[in-house]
């Protein structure tokens, strides 16, 4: 290789830049796990807080047509705001912290969840509601024993969509330095386009989303034994 570098001026042009490198993953295992941990914490936090707000909101929105319209209209608007703009708009209040990302992610998951919760609740047949009322079920018992089980498939569908898209969206948190595995993606880009780091981050995100989706699908199966019985 005596003539190497005849055309290339910099050593970096000659250096190999593989798409994936096992030794990169092994050498930086702790860093990757740290980012993965942050990614998981942000996702779980956003989906849990989103659920805690979306459920009462959906119950309230079901009461009146006007309120339902307002909730759906507002959710369409929030849903349309690009994540970059969302994080940049929250940033002046919470600064370069994980809170900025958490608030943004919660807003998106909330919007997805409230729609699905509302659809699930509206899907409970009126006859069933009336029969439950006729049998003397109060509002609280009717919710837990009648409406919730019937609306569960729509609820779980919402949770799965919200979780998977939150995993993907967390990467945009790199804007404020808290993007979980997204840090690897932009980190590799800034480290002279180091492909192995970028691919590790990207593949990690997709795997995390798929694992979360499979787990939630498993939970759904456990929670709705009657659906299995009906299918069999």
């Amino acid at each position: 290789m005596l003539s190497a570098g005849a055309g290339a001026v910099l050593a970096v042009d000659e250096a190999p830049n593989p798409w994936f490198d096992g030794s990169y993953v092994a050498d930086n295992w702790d860093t990757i796990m740290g980012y993965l941990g942050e990614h998981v914490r942000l996702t779980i936090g956003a989906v849990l807080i989103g659920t805690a707000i979306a459920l009462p909101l959906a119950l309230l929105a079901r009461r009146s047509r006007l309120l339902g319209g307002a909730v759906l209209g507002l959710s369409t608007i929030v849903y349309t705001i690009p994540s970059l703009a969302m994080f940049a708009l929250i940033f002046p209040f919470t600064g370069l912290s994980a809170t900025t990302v958490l608030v943004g992610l919660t807003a998106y998951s909330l919007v997805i969840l409230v729609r699905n919760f509302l659809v699930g609740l509206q899907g409970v047949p009126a006859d069933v509601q009336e029969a439950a009322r006729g049998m003397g079920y109060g509002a609280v018992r009717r919710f837990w024993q009648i409406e919730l089980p019937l609306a569960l498939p729509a609820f779980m569908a919402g949770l799965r969509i919200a979780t998977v898209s939150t995993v993907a969206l967390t990467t945009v948190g790199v804007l404020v330095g808290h993007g979980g595995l997204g840090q690897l993606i932009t980190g590799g880009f800034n480290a002279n386009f180091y492909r192995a780091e970028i691919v590790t981050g990207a593949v990690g995100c997709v795997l995390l989303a798929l694992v979360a989706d499979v787990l939630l699908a498993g939970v759904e199966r456990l929670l709705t034994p009657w659906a299995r019985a009906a299918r069999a």
Partner: protein
Amino acid sequence: MTGFGDAIAYLNDPLNWTRRSGILELLGEHLAISVVAVLAALVLAFPVGVALGSAGRGSGAVVVLSNVSRAVPTLALLTLFAVSPIGFGNRATTIALAVFAIPPILTNTYVGFRGVDADVREAARGMGMTRGQVVTRVELPLALPLVMTGLRTAAVQVVATAGLAALVGGGGLGRIVNLGFGQQDYGQIIAGAILIAVLALLTELALVLLSRVVTPGPGRASLLRLRDRTVAGRPEPTASGVPL
């Protein structure tokens, strides 16, 4: 409030709009990238969606595609294309965005064409229409609302994601936000965010209006009653739609 006053000041300065790499130039770049990406995706995905949908085949593949595409971060795809041999810049951004616009268009076109009543199709054949006439005169009008939903979802996604390109060396309005972060200029960050958000909302609105105009039937007349149909609490008739 921190920065919001500065943002208004930034947006009110005509020089910020008209100078080189100012708002107007970046807006033009943003729109050009977005339009090319959506059209490319439409050209690729629409015929496939029509073919699969009216044949009623390949539902498994379409569902898998739309689910997997939801799990792939847009930022990852933008970065991967930027470090590929294509090289970072507007070409890589456009290709990445087009890839992202394919699943919503394909899925909705597929669902729309598959949903056409078999009796209607048979009646059309019975009246002597050729295969091509059935597709263009019978199936397309019936599938159009869903096709337009797919197009709208894709377009809004693309316009929103184009902002992220600035994080990996691309152009567009995201540059203003990115530059603001680099310069610790809150006003500029917020101004850029407002511009991107407004552009995405306007895209949504424009395409809602467009689909009202092109959709045949009772929907066409109700341009003024825009909110009417969304209030019903139905989920949007789409299989793939996520914020970006």
